[in-house]
């Protein structure tokens, strides 16, 4: 091959990978949906605050969706995250109400560590069972989910409202940005408000995106999800990779519990009920494949935002009823899964055709590529 050809080769733009393709689709759909809502429903959708509300209300969902994305890229699943949020919220609420520590900072810090500790414990045990004992992740985390829900109910059958003043003050703490605000009818300037939880959620997305892209663990998770056997042959410690993906997932679930409590400071046996399902839906809509190896948290973020936007649109429209929302979510999920399989099979078909062409001796072309 001549130098010239090589140079041309180097300059060529790479075609989109499957993961990028699916992520771009979900970003596009989010943008289209949001724009449509701006034009038809107007009202709240015209204010920047709407975006912040979506973030504020769904911070915990975004975090557990990231948690799910990490394990799903590794070829696993974790359906205990909703239960872990429930348990974390209840434990933290009881701890805050019962604490006798004077320093409010210490008690809140301990609450935070408690939340992370619960998530970590679940992650460690589930990760160990899935990776080292090679038990089906679905079964392991199903057990984890039942356990977490059961423990939550044992802690308290009745709802527990947080009465800890310092924590309630924290709940009310919001980042205010006046230039993104709007003027109310009485002439007062109402600034845009962002909750701490929303900031944490965005940080988690960024952190996980960096982890998946630039850390060895992240790349190993992709490799293991893509082909476990190959990953092993490539010298990757498959078991420890899977183990750490569940530990991260568990930790994020605990963090999500704390964020949830900061949004709604009350424990309840049914907190984040089916949260894991929304998280799975967000991941899939964001372009994560259940088969593993493909996906990223940026897509997941937009997946969660799509679900959140649907919820908001239905709440603001005359159709406001929970079943409409469920159906819209279902339809959206179905649509995405069909779209994914169509896009991916079209791409792989393109590849197959190409390979056939190469078999003919005359065909001369580079080993790529597909539209």
């Amino acid at each position, binding site marked *: *091959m001549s130098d010239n050809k090589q140079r041309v080769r180097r300059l060529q733009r790479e*075609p989109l990978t499957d993961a990028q393709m699916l992520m771009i689709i979900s970003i596009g759909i989010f943008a289209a949906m949001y724009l449509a809502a701006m034009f038809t429903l107007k009202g709240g959708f015209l204010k920047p605050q709407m975006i912040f509300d979506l973030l504020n209300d769904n911070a915990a969902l975004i975090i557990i969706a990231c948690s799910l994305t990490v394990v799903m890229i590794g070829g696993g699943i974790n359906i205990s995250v909703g239960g872990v949020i429930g348990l974390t919220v209840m434990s933290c609420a009881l701890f805050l109400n019962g604490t006798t520590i004077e320093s409010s900072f210490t008690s809140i810090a301990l609450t935070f560590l408690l939340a992370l500790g619960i998530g970590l414990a679940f992650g460690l045990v589930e990760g160990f069972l899935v990776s080292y004992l090679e038990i089906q992740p679905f079964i392991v985390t199903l057990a984890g989910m039942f356990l977490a829900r059961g423990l939550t109910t044992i802690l308290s059958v009745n709802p527990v409202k947080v009465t800890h003043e310092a924590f309630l003050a924290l709940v009310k703490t919001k980042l205010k940005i006046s230039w993104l605000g709007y003027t109310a009818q009485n002439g007062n300037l109402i600034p845009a408000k962002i909750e701490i939880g929303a900031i944490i959620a965005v940080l988690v997305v960024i952190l996980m995106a960096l982890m998946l892209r*630039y850390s060895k663990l992240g790349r190993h998770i992709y*490799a293991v999800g893509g*082909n476990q056997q*190959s990953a092993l042959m*490539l010298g990757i410690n498959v078991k420890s990779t899977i183990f750490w993906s569940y530990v991260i997932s568990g930790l994020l679930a605990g963090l999500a519990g704390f964020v949830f409590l900061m949004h709604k400071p009350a424990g309840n046996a049914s907190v984040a009920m089916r949260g894991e399902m929304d998280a799975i839906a967000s991941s899939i809509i964001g372009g994560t494949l259940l088969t593993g190896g493909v996906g990223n948290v940026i897509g997941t973020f937009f997946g969660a935002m799509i679900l959140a936007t649907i919820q908001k649109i239905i709440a603001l429209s005359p159709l406001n009823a929970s079943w409409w929302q469920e159906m819209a979510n279902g339809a959206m999920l179905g649509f995405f899964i069909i779209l994914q399989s169509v896009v991916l099979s079209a791409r792989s078909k393109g590849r197959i055709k190409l390979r056939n062409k*190469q078999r003919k001796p005359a065909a001369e072309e580079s*080993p790529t*590529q597909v539209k």
Partner: protein
Amino acid sequence: MQNDIVLTMRGICKYFPGVRALNNVDFTLRKGTIHALMGENGAGKSTLIKVLTGVYPMDEGEIRIDGVEGAISIRSPQEAQTYGISTVYQEITLCPNLTVAENMFIGRTAGKGVDWKAMEKKAGELLDNLGIPARPRQQLGSCSLAVQQMVAIARAVDTDCKVLILDEPTSSLDDKEVEMLFGLMRELKSRGVGIIFVTHFLEQVYAVSDQITVLRNGELVGQFDVKDLPQVKLVEKMIGKDLEDLSGIKNTARAVPDGEAFYAAEDLSSSESRPFDFHIARGEVNGFTGLLGSGRSESVRAIFGADPVTGGTVTVDGKHVKITKPLDAMKHGIGYLPEDRKRDGIIADLSVRENIILALQVIKGMNHPISRAKTEAFADEYIKALNIKTASPETPIKSLSGGNQQKVILARWLLTHPQYLILDEPTRGIDVGTKTEIQKLVLKLAEEGMSITFISSEIEEMLRTCSRLIVMRDRKIVGELTGEELTQEHVMKTIAGGEQ
């Protein structure tokens, strides 16, 4: 010991329960040579490779490698790599969802982070250097199999590689891709890498190798320079007997049997094949021939209903029938041994017995289970009849050698007593001895009245067995040869087309 020797294996022995897989085998590899490791299935090639790469511990013997004082012990593939022994397997062992560059470097860089820029730059240099037509940022899954194979090799040689083992690297590549791979092998050779090349293809051995080591039944037959060992001699050494057996098979054209066609199709087409006419008489052996991708496999798949049938009329035994799925074909007495044994043939985790019984059970229907005793009797009968080498009928089929797996699939169909059997590449990737056995079996079955369609990439094989050859080119039937026309020259001309 000369100092251009990079690897010495002395007196290697490896026992498995009941089997002596390697008995006192010696092997010497020189720097900058391509050394073919040849032998029939079960000769011990894979075992020797696995001992060398630390997959199996050896029971006796010693391994020495250039640059290391004394004998070494290799306990895992990772450890083998630290000694500079890398392996590229037949199946691609890379991750298709990652980029080319990542596949070359993942799992073997220091530190906790990934420096994409440096990695892609390094990958690009290595790819250019070796002349591999892949781009660092390309998703591996979008490369052709040959390029994926080459990326695997690039990964292997980037570590300080002294010994590169290529285990059947060409089995899923076409001619052009094989040439590309050979180019890369020669390049590595010129850099002083010692390459162990395991393959079934004789011509490829002669195209690229410098030396040949032949194993048979776990024992060393000898180590030869390629120029001292003509192809005929090599085959003799591999099967350990003279070629009389091969030439003993009728080489003269067989007459096409008269009489009614058992199976006839008009304008038969499937989702993968163009409309074609076809017929076969009782006791006839015919064959489809043509280049890879000419549509020969697609045609027989259409006959069996393996691809969705889209049109045409089919007559079996004088009656109009509809064959749209394999079960229809089976019910009309048609059997099909598929081209891709691993994917369409064997069920890897089931035992030999269960694999044999499969087709018969399907024809009978799940409501009429065959008793355990009967299945055992059937299995024993066919293991004996076809001389299948297996530890027991309950051994999982995946642990058998390729040739024996093929015989099991053959047994599966013979058990259903088909009247028409389609064999698509039954001899591909199996040893010469079993090939001969299968060809003999085909002729015997035909004499007993079975119609057989036989496909093989080796034209001589087809000439030996078939009385009629259907030649395909570009998915169309371009000729039918019988009698006097059945010569290699004639077949080639028809395949190639044109007047001369």
